[in-house]
């Protein structure tokens, strides 16, 4: 009897051990795959810099990858990405935060549930469908109202990207705002604050860490989005002078040209180098997100 109990115990210990190790192996595998992707990116992209200097590559103003006189300067592409990201963020962040505050602090019952699920539905629309909407709805609208030749431009792409980032920013900041304990709000009310003062001066500052994470993740999403910009940004590799000029961000450039670039050729290497640049940008963004969200977290000590 006693012996059997002991055996059971050792079996369960072995079982625990196996479970623990298999989870470890699974998580290491995914890390390894990610690492392999990174290595592959570097291996394919870095040889470019034997032919083109890093400085010329990043700051060159002309992108002619298939002409007789090949010029591989991605500066217009970087500027396109930056402009689109800034414009889309300017549109998306205020709308998302207002929506998050509305859901978390103002709306009640059914309305709250409906808005929350609507936001989730927006998040689940495939980006190709949003791009399609941009081509057939937003573009004609812009042409009609702003007296321009083409509706496929910086503004159109930014509007649609903002639309894709809104669910991300909204739902994460809503979680952050909702997690503020009732006791803090009560303390504010008990001092004679009204609802608005409580939200602006207590709830939002206290949830700033989560709101920062939400914003940075939303912006990462905007930077990385490919299909929409491929469809509606216009695709011209020039530095835009107005929000109605067509642009060609880094992501859509890679997507559009990868199929036609000869494997191992200089064009092919350049596209991988763009991948490296994108990787670095998103990496910096995620690090910043971590840093900001920790900075605004009020620790106990």
């Amino acid at each position, binding site marked *: 009897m006693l012996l059997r109990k002991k055996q059971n115990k050792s079996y369960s210990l072995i079982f625990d051990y196996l479970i623990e190790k298999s989870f470890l192996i699974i998580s290491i595998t995914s890390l390894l795959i990610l690492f392999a992707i990174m290595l592959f990116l570097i291996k394919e992209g870095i040889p470019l810099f034997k032919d083109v200097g890093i400085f010329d590559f990043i700051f060159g103003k002309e992108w002619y990858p298939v002409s007789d006189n090949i010029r591989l300067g991605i500066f217009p592409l970087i500027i396109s990405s930056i402009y689109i990201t800034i414009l889309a963020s300017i549109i998306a962040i205020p709308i998302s935060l207002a929506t998050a505050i509305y859901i978390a602090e103002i709306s*009640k019952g059914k309305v709250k549930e409906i808005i929350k699920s609507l936001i989730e539905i927006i998040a689940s629309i495939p980006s190709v469908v949003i791009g399609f909407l941009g081509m057939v709805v937003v573009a004609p609208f812009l042409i009609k109202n702003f007296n321009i030749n083409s509706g496929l431009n910086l503004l159109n792409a930014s509007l649609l990207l903002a639309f894709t980032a809104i669910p991300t920013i909204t739902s994460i900041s809503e979680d952050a705002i909702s997690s503020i*304990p009732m*006791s*803090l*709000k*009560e*303390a*504010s*009310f*008990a*001092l*004679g*604050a*009204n609802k608005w*003062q409580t939200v602006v*001066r*207590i709830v939002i*500052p*206290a949830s700033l860490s989560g709101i920062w994470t939400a914003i940075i993740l939303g912006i990462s999403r905007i930077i990385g989005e490919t299909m929409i910009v491929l469809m509606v940004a216009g695709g011209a590799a020039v530095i835009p002078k107005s929000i109605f000029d067509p642009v060609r961000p880094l992501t859509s450039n890679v997507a559009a040209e990868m199929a036609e670039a000869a494997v191992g050729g200089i064009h092919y290497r350049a596209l991988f180098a763009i991948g490296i640049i994108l990787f670095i940008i998103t990496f910096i963004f995620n690090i910043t997100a971590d840093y900001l969200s920790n900075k605004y977290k*009020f*620790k*106990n*000590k």
Partner: protein
Amino acid sequence: MNYKINVKNVSFYYGENHVLKEINLTVEKNSVAALIGPSGCGKSTFLRCINRMNDIIPGTKMTGEILIDEDSIYSHNYDVTTLRRRVGMVFQKSNPFPQSIYDNIAYGLKIKGIKDKYDIESTVEKSLKSTALWDEVKDRLNKSAMSLSGGQQQRLCIARTIAVQPEVILMDEPASALDPISTQKIEELIQELKKNYTIVIVTHNMQQAARVSDYTAFFYLGELIEMDRTEIIFTKPGNILTENYVTGKFG
């Protein structure tokens, strides 16, 4: 007739639940009134009626009338934010804002519309001094309030409450989560504050009620069983329920 708080026929409902039944009582100006009774007897709910804190809980209903001085605080034209400035509240669990010590106290003044920096600074200092916290925190006013100990946090919450110069202070078991030394500090503070404020305190601890209060009200199952001078409640109460409770026969 020097009543600060006058409660007339107050009943309170959580949905269908009748949690306070026809409460009538008065609290004298510059006195400490303790509300005692077993858990769930409605004493905290009653306390939250006095600054209309229950307004923010959906599905609740109150009938009856509460007067602060001569003002009927539940009448339609009485502004709830004005009321809460007159009737401050300290909660069971200390709840400082996750901001600096200074900002915690300045908050109430800023929302009141006080902009003068010198004015705010001197009030912050005065409030911290009157809660005996000044010497402990004067060198780190810009540090997070979360870095204070539990007892210090609770005194900060009291300082924050008195900074807006209320007339009445409600305390909902303010020392229940504190160690004996911090509790003693809070109790001494209550004696000190009574000179300028009228205080209503909910407590589970009968020794505490006996030590700090002038009047004691005993609540049981949503009813006010009796209220009298504290020494009478603890020595010769009028009701057998009160006697059984204060002598520890149930509770």
